[in-house]
């Protein structure tokens, strides 16, 4: 009762990263308001799924395990999760802001008539005073997200409805095991009580998942390029530097739109969010939408001809110069000084 519940997504038999990030965040929120962390997993062949999930500090794990439940379909998953919420009356419910989470969470919020905030980048616990109604709400979930095309950051609350629901973007929160060997209880759901045959009206005919080849999200060093890099040829310099430093190459939306680099490498509000140790921004002006995806980087170096480029405002080092001249020198002096 009044717990924090995380809906965990399954892909190819394992829990996706964003769900583990949410379990980590969920545990911290649950501790702050003095309740338990629970989780829901819906899919097929989930026998050993508990081991990994419990180590994140999960108390109760609700499992619906049936061949019909994988791959994900909206109606059966929505029906199961809604019923669990009605029984458990959670305080807070979290979903990944993924293809699945953004399809599922609104359907549930509508059925339960409760508030939902999409694509949060930060979650906090705080009190809220409604001065008009002379009412103080303790321990609300502050749901923080960019809005209006990334030009504003809004804090959203749902004071009156429970659960307080939010979807959270992948990669913005840390993933950290709570305790290896932490014990929780497994609740196996009797499917007949949670879904109807009619929930399976949408049939999946064909499914083709591509394994993501690039993994910029988990890279500690990212060399990223914008429109200012000027050409695909110049982007090769970024790849060379990345290879030398042991990093990955990313790009801004403008660089992707210009065809300099593939979409899967896009960083920013409409791409992935990254927080590497080192982010080298080459020919990136630093639009808000791009900054939203990288401003948590531990160190930022910008390479830009324009000394007034907004990226310089968040950079630790601003190199005023040409990408084609600066990058070869970085490679040269890195090699020289590590030998």
């Amino acid at each position: 009762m009044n717990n924090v519940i995380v809906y965990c997504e399954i892909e190819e038999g394992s829990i996706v990263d964003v769900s583990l990030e949410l379990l980590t965040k969920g545990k911290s929120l649950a501790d702050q308001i003095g309740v338990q962390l629970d989780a829901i997993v819906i899919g097929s062949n989930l026998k050993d799924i508990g081991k990994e999930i419990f180590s994140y500090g999960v108390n109760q794990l609700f499992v619906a395990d049936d061949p019909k439940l994988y791959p994900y379909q909206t109606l059966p998953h929505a029906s199961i999760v809604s019923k669990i919420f009605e029984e458990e009356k959670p305080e807070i419910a979290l979903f990944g802001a993924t293809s699945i989470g953004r399809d599922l969470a609104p359907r549930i919020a509508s059925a339960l008539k409760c508030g939902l905030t999409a694509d949060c980048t930060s979650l906090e616990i705080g009190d809220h005073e409604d001065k008009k109604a002379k009412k103080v709400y303790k321990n609300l979930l502050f749901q923080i997200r960019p809005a209006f095309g990334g030009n504003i950051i809004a804090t959203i609350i749902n004071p009156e409805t429970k659960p307080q629901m939010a979807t959270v973007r992948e990669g913005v929160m840390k993933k950290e095991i709570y305790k290896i060997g932490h014990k929780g209880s497994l609740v196996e759901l009797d499917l007949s009580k949670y879904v109807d045959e009619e929930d399976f009206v949408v049939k999946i005919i064909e499914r083709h998942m591509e394994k993501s080849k690039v993994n910029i999200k988990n890279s500690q060093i990212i060399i990223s390029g914008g429109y200012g890099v000027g050409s695909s040829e110049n982007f090769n310099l970024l790849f060379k530097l990345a290879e030398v430093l042991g990093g990955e190459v990313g790009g801004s939306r403008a660089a992707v739109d210009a065809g300099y680099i593939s979409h899967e490498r896009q960083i920013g509000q409409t791409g992935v969010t990254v927080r590497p140790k080192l982010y080298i921004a080459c020919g990136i002006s630093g639009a808000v939408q791009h900054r939203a995806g990288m401003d948590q980087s531990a160190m930022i170096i910008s390479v830009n001809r324009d000394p007034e480029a907004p990226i310089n405002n968040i950079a630790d080092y601003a190199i005023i110069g040409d990408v084609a001249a600066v990058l070869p020198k970085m490679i040269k002096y890195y090699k020289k000084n590590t030998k």
Partner: protein
Amino acid sequence: MKGLKIIVLAKQVPDTRNVGKDAMKANGTVNRGALPAIFNPEDLKALEQALQLKDKYPGTTVTILTMGPGRAADIVREGLFRGADNGYLITDRKFAGSDTLATSYAISLAAKKLAPFDLILCGRQAIDGDTAQVGPQVAEKINIPQVTYAEMIDKVDKGKITIKRRLERGVETVEAPMPLLVTVHGSAPDCRSRNAKFLLKYKHAETWTEKQRDTEDYIKLHEDRPYLDIAEWTVDDLKADETYLGLTGSPTKVKRVFNVVFTAKEAKVLNESDSDIEELMKELIDNHNIG
């Protein structure tokens, strides 16, 4: 096959994609007035999917349904210019302040008023909020299935529709029964341009409110050509329960808003000289940022 009855949900939004210098006021707040009001881009792609079905299956009708202030009638007109058959504007001050839940309640009532229909199409999300919530919430309130992130609506056969979906890491093809709600992904094809014939035909299409400003001649024009009427639906027309509308009907509240202001931090400025770059690389190596 007989034609389909399709409703396209469309939203008028401020164009947040090209926020230029004049879009921010001196105090760092967003100057909404400086942003042009446009047809939400993914809703336009949903309209194209509807029009393609209309091309393929004669007898299909396409209805634009929008919600907003009076000027949102522009969205209905834009739809008519591109090939929609008619349109409705949900408008009432009592809707002001609605979050996605309250909005989807109002839209679901309007859609039920337009029933029976085969399909509701809308964009995945609107660029002013990017929530992607209204589509699925409307589907839930009407109690019909949803198919999100459609890239292509392939065919309709024996009451079933085949749709290709674009997911984060792949594609999926599904077959679904109708009535159905479909949200259309940005990777779907762009909408066709305005058609000169429709532009002439619907140039004077107006809502009742807009007509009040017209001269006698136009009022006569509307009497002769009822297709020029854009219906307006208020809270009363929809028989909506006011507790589910506007701020009262919205469980989410905005506690505070920060404008993203470019806060200057002291960056160490370097130039592209050999000595500057070598110094930097040494520093990074010494501090274990790299290597």
